[in-house]
C-alpha cells in the first residue's frame, strides 16, 4: 500500500510544472513536436504563420533559426499567440527577442485601443522565456497549461 502511495506521489511530483530545466534537453527540444501537443490545449484555434509574415512583422529571418513556430489566432480580437524558436547566435537571438517584445507591446496597445482589456492584459502579462538558444512566449488564457507542457519537455 505504501509503495502505491509513494509511486503516485512521485508521479504527481514529476508531472508538476517545476522550474527545473534539464539543459541537455534544450538542444534536443523539437519545436514542431512540442507545438503539436500545445496546439491541442490552446484556448482558441491558432494558425501558424509563414516565413514572409515572420520576416515582415517580426523582422526575423527564419534562416537564422534552428526550429520555430509563430502561431496566432485568426480572430483579430484575440491576443492568443504561441511563439517558440531556437537561435544559436546570441546576438541575433537578443535582437529577435527585442522584436518579439516590441510586437507584444504593440499587441497590448492595439487591443487596449480596441476595447479588449482582457486580451490586452494577457499580452501585458506574458513573459518571454529564454533557455539557452530556446526562446518562447505564450499569450493565452491557457498559458499555465501551455507553459507547463513546454517546460515538461525541458
Amino acid at each position, binding site marked *: 500500500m505504501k509503495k502505491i502511495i509513494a509511486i503516485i506521489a512521485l508521479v*504527481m511530483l514529476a508531472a508538476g510544472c517545476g522550474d527545473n530545466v534539464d539543459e541537455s534537453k534544450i538542444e534536443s527540444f523539437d519545436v514542431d513536436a512540442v507545438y503539436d501537443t500545445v496546439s491541442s490545449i490552446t484556448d482558441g484555434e491558432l494558425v501558424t504563420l509563414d516565413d514572409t509574415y515572420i520576416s515582415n512583422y517580426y*523582422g526575423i529571418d527564419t534562416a537564422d533559426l534552428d526550429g520555430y513556430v509563430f502561431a496566432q489566432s*485568426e480572430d483579430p*480580437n484575440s491576443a492568443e499567440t504561441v511563439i517558440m524558436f531556437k537561435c544559436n547566435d546570441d546576438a541575433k537571438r537578443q535582437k529577435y527577442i527585442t522584436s518579439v517584445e*516590441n510586437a507584444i507591446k504593440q499587441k497590448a496597445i492595439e487591443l487596449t485601443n480596441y*476595447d479588449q482589456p482582457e486580451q490586452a492584459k494577457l499580452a501585458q502579462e506574458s513573459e518571454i522565456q529564454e533557455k539557452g538558444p530556446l526562446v518562447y512566449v505564450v499569450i493565452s488564457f491557457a498559458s499555465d497549461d501551455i507553459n507547463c507542457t513546454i517546460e515538461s519537455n525541458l
Partner: protein
Amino acid sequence: MNKRANRVYWLLLIMILIMGVCILADDKRGQSPEDTEDTTQQITTQSFTEPSTESSTELTSSDETVETTTADEAMLENYYKNTVFTGDSIMSGFATFVQNTSGDAPKWLKQCTFITAVSWGIDDALKGSGPMYNGKAQDITLSLGSIKPEKVFINLGINEMNGLGSPGYSIEKLNGKYGELIARIKSAVPESKIYVMSVPPCTAAKQTNMFNNETIRKFNRSVEEKAEEWGITYLDFSAEFGQALAPEYARDGIHHQPKAFREVWIPYLEKIAANNV
C-alpha cells in the same frame, strides 16, 4: 507496526498537500475569461478608396468595368510583385489568412507584404502611429519608404465610422485627414501606385444609430470624389459585399471569415489584375 503506520500517514499527508495545491492551481486557471467575443466590438471601420489620377482607372462596382476573368498565376504573380497591403483589423484578418502555413491562399498573394494593425485608423496613421513592420511599430511612411513598393493597397476607416457625421465629427473632416495621409504616403513613395479600397459594410445586425452602412457608404462616396485630386485609384471594394456584409462572411459583424477572403477578396483582386487597373 507503529513505524509503518507513521510512514503511511506521512505519505498520505504529502498526497493531500499535493492535491490541494493542484486544486488551487486549477481554480486559478479556471478564472480566466472565456467570453472574449461578446465583450466586444464597437469598433468598426475600415478604409476604402477611389479612382486615380495618372493611370487612373476607376474600378467601380464589380459588374461594369470588370468581368470575372481567370487570370493566370504568372500574370497575377507579376501584377502583385512588390505589393503592400496595409490597413486595420479587417486587413489583419486577411493577412493572417494569406500567410497561414496550412492555408490555401494563392502563391501570388503570399508574396505580398502586409502591414496591418488592429484598431488602426486614418487619424492614427496620420499621427505616425504605425503597425509593426520588420520588428518594430513605426510610421507607415517609414515602412513603405524602406520597401518602395510598386503598388500599395490601403484599407482604412472602419475604426472611425462610429459616430461619424455627428456634431464635431464630420465626414469632411475625416476625409480631409485621409487626403493628408495619402499625400504623406505619396511623398514617401512617389513611384508607388496607390489604391484605396472602400470600407466594406458591416452586417445588418451590427448596425446601430452611431455605426451603420449608410455612414460607411457616405464616407466611401466622399473618398471616391477625391480620388482624382489625391492621385489614387479608388477601388469600390465594398460593392462586392452589397448593402450589408452577409452573415456567413462575418466573424463578428465587422471582421471577415476565410469564406469571404476566398469568395470575395481573392476573386476581386484577380479581377483588378486581369483588368490591369
